[in-house]
Every structure is written in C-alpha cells, then in structure tokens.
C-alpha cells in the first residue's frame, strides 16, 4: 500500500515543480517595469475607495458550518458503503437511521430559514 503513496509523493513533487517552473520562467522572460500607477488595485480605472477587507455577512459563515456538519456525516457513509453487501438487517437499519437523521437536519435548516439567501 505504501508503494501507491510513494508514487503519489513523487507525483506531488513534480506537480509542484510544473507551476513553480512556469512562473519563475515567466518572471524572468517578461519585462519588469513596475510603477505605482500600474501596481494600483484594478477597478476598471476608477480610484478605489476605502479598505478592501470589508466585513462579510454572517450568511457565508452559516453555509460553511452547515457544509462542515454534512461533510462529516457523508464521509462516515463511505466505509459503510464498502461493507454494505455483507451488512445484516440490523446494520442496514442502523445505516438508514443515520441517513434519516441527516435528512432531519436538512429539514430543520429548511424550516428555520437557514437556506434562504437574502
């Protein structure tokens, strides 16, 4: 099994090398004449106003939280799927209960309006 990951390790080295080489090459081949106007924030020629890092709405955070919870539950389903052929009726009922709890969570969000994007 570690053999497989040796290959992944070697490929990851090359996968880093390709973009780094391309960017470094581009850096040296291209001209370099920076000036303050050129380096300004690009807003279609309009002067930028205020700070870039404005406060963001809580909605994004909520989506992140919901995603995290669903992600954790979905990952648990994968090992069960691998063993599904040999599960007894008891195990099947347990798995289905798990999925139903997941569905309940979705229903809860829906009813509480967490899925509305205003």
């Amino acid at each position, binding site marked *: *099994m570690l*053999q*497989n*990951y040796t*290959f*992944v390790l*070697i*490929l*990851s*080295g*090359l*996968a*880093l*090398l*390709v*973009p780094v080489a*391309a*960017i470094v*090459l*581009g*850096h040296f*081949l*291209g*001209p*370099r*004449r920076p000036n303050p106007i050129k*380096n*300004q*924030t*690009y*807003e*279609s020629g309009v002067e*930028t106003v205020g700070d*870039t890092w404005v406060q963001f709405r809580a909605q*994004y955070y909520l*989506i992140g939280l*919901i*995603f995290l919870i*669903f*992600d954790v539950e*979905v990952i648990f*389903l*994968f090992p069960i*799927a*691998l063993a*599904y*052929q040999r599960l007894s*009726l008891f195990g*099947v009922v347990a*798995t*289905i209960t798990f*999925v*139903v709890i*997941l*569905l309940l969570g*979705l229903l809860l969000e*829906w009813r509480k309006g967490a*899925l509305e*994007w*205003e």
Partner: protein
Amino acid sequence: MQHWSTTLTNFFVGLGLPEPVAMAIAFIIGATALAIFAPTLALGLIWITRKIISRIQDRIGPNRVGPYGLFQTVADAAKLLSKEDISPTDADRVAYNLAPILSVFGVIMSTAVIAFAPGIIGADLHVGVLFLVALGSLGILSALMAGWSSNNKYALLAGFRVIAQLLSYEIPMVLAMLGPVLLAGSMRLQALSEFQSLEIAGFNIGLGWTAFIMPAVFLIYFISALAEGEQTPFDLLEAESELIAGFHIEYSGMKFAMFFLAQFLNSFFLGGIAVMLFLGGWQGPFVDQLPILGVVYFLGKAMLVYAVTQWIKGTFPRVRIDQMMAFAWKVLVPMVLALILWQMIALKLPAPTWVQYAAILIGNLGALALIVVILNRHLSKEEIRTKRAFEPTSLIGTMQPAPPSPGN
C-alpha cells in the same frame, strides 16, 4: 491485469538494476508522464473550447496558427510567458504567489488516480474516490488565498462567492458518488471501472454503465460537477459585468495562466470522474482482448462529456446567487439523499440482482419525474412574481386601455 509499474520495474530489473532502484525509476517515469500529460491536455482543451464556442456563436474561431489554428494556444502561452508579472501594492505576497501554484498542484495530483485502461492508473488508491474529493478542497483553498491576498474588493467578493458555491455543491456531488460506490462495494477507481462490464454470450461489450441504473444520480453528479468546475450556468464568480474577472483579477502573465490551466483541467477531470463512476470508464468492446483500447475509450468519453459542458457554456444564461444556493440545498441534496436511501433499501430486497437494479432504476425515474413536476410549478409561480415586481407600483392593477383623447 498487471499494473504498468510492475511491467516497467521488471524491465529495469532485466537490465540488471537492483529492484528498489528499478522501481523508483519506473515510478519517476510514470509520474513524469502524468505531469507532462496534464499541461499538454490543457493546450488541447483550450483549443477545443474556443472552436466549439465559436461554432455556437457562428464564428470560425482560431484558424491562423497551424492547421485549423491548432497551435493558437501554444502561441498564447508564449505570449503570456513574455508578459510582465505585476503584483499589486499591499498584496499579501506569500498567499498571492502560493495561490496559482496550489491550484495547478491540485489538478495535476488528480491525474494520479485516473483509470485510463486496465492496469494503467498512476496509483490505484483504496480511497480513490475520496482522494479526488479531497483534492477539490485544495481548489477552495487556492480561491480563498487568491481572493484574500489580491487587495481588491472584487477579487475578495468573487472569492467568497466561489467558496459558497464550491462548498454547497460538494455535498450533493459526494453523495452522488456514493451511489456507484454502494453498487461496486469499492472506492478504487479501477474496481469501479471493472464493475461496469456487461457480458453478453461471454463477450464483454462494456455497457454495464451505472448511469443506466441510476440516471437521476448521474444527473445530480453532472450538475454538481458543473458548479464545482465553475462552468456556466454556475459561473457567477467570473460574472464579467459585475466582478470583472473573478478572484484572479489582479493576476497577470504566467500566474494568470496557471489559474486558467487549472480551471480547464479541473472541468475536464470532473467529466473524467463522471466517466469513471457512471459512464463505464475504460469499458468498451474488445477492451478485454486489447487493454490499450481502454485509453481511447476513456479519453473519448471524457472528451464527449467535456464537449457537452462547453455546449452548455455556449447556450445557457447564468443563474443568480440565491437561485444557485437554493438549487443545491433545496433540490439536489434532498433528492440525492432520498435516492441513496432508496438504493440502500433496494439493494437489500430479497430478490435476484437484476430485480434490485430495476427497483433502483424505477426509483430514479420516479424521482426525476417528481422533481420536474415540482420545479415546473415553482418556476411558473416565480415567473408571475417577477413580472409583478417589474410592473411600476403606481400602475399595479390599474392597467387600463388608454382613454380616448377628447377632440379627436
């Protein structure tokens, strides 16, 4: 079928090298082949995209550089190489430079588990399917870094949009992947491809595609993959009229090219995953006799899926952000959860396998019909509401034919 690395290792051992060294050389050759394959493929993909989109828009597209304009992308790459590398003032240097590298890193890594043909797969990981999903989170990370570090409001705004989109559509996508995994009982992509064989009178015609058993799950995967690949109709992040270009607006030269490359490869590989999970992978007639044919079948199918996504790109309008989020959480997730639940029940029916598969198919078709009916009703209501919203308030309900003017 013997793995390619075994064949290569044996060849080098035959030349008199000690085994660990032979194996290391074999691995390095394989990895280099994949690392070269990915960027080369991207050059071809960009050309194909431009040709398809041009035809849809009644243009010819690139036709000057080389036959059929084939070398246009090469020329474009050379141009980008000679462009100045501008980094905006006050940009966060570390994150700004790491983001494009990370995005390309993610897509090249995904070639590691792609099953091209029997025995031709970089590394047949036991957690192959989840490995591909995990690499997707690198894309999220690089969008976040680029959006944050550019010191540009539009980049940050686009970064936030793309993350909300990628997170929302990852759930239905992963759940849809669970469908074939449940059937095959394995997460190895080679095993999933092998599972989709179909023998008729002892001859494998390779049409045991899981998409035939679960068309609705396949459709859910395909739609989620469009969103994950940031393709139309889910290309809100690069809405030109609102956000200029997306989270990579401040990038120029080669760094911009890296994001471009990653995006094209990403949407191709998402199609490739669809092929491996739902459309039979490298399966096809005569593949058992001549394994190398698998490469042709796999790349051909993946190209077809890619062409369909470009067709969609050329014809569909863009969705609004609230529609995008609602579609993921209120349509796709409940639907795919219900389908998986039904599949779990169907697979434990005390009946022969084909009856179980037929039950799954009926459930899928039923779910599709149901969702079409519900969406239809919802959309016609929505249409009336939008029309009302655009009626001038002073005229609501008072629209009368103009009174006849006096004197005439």
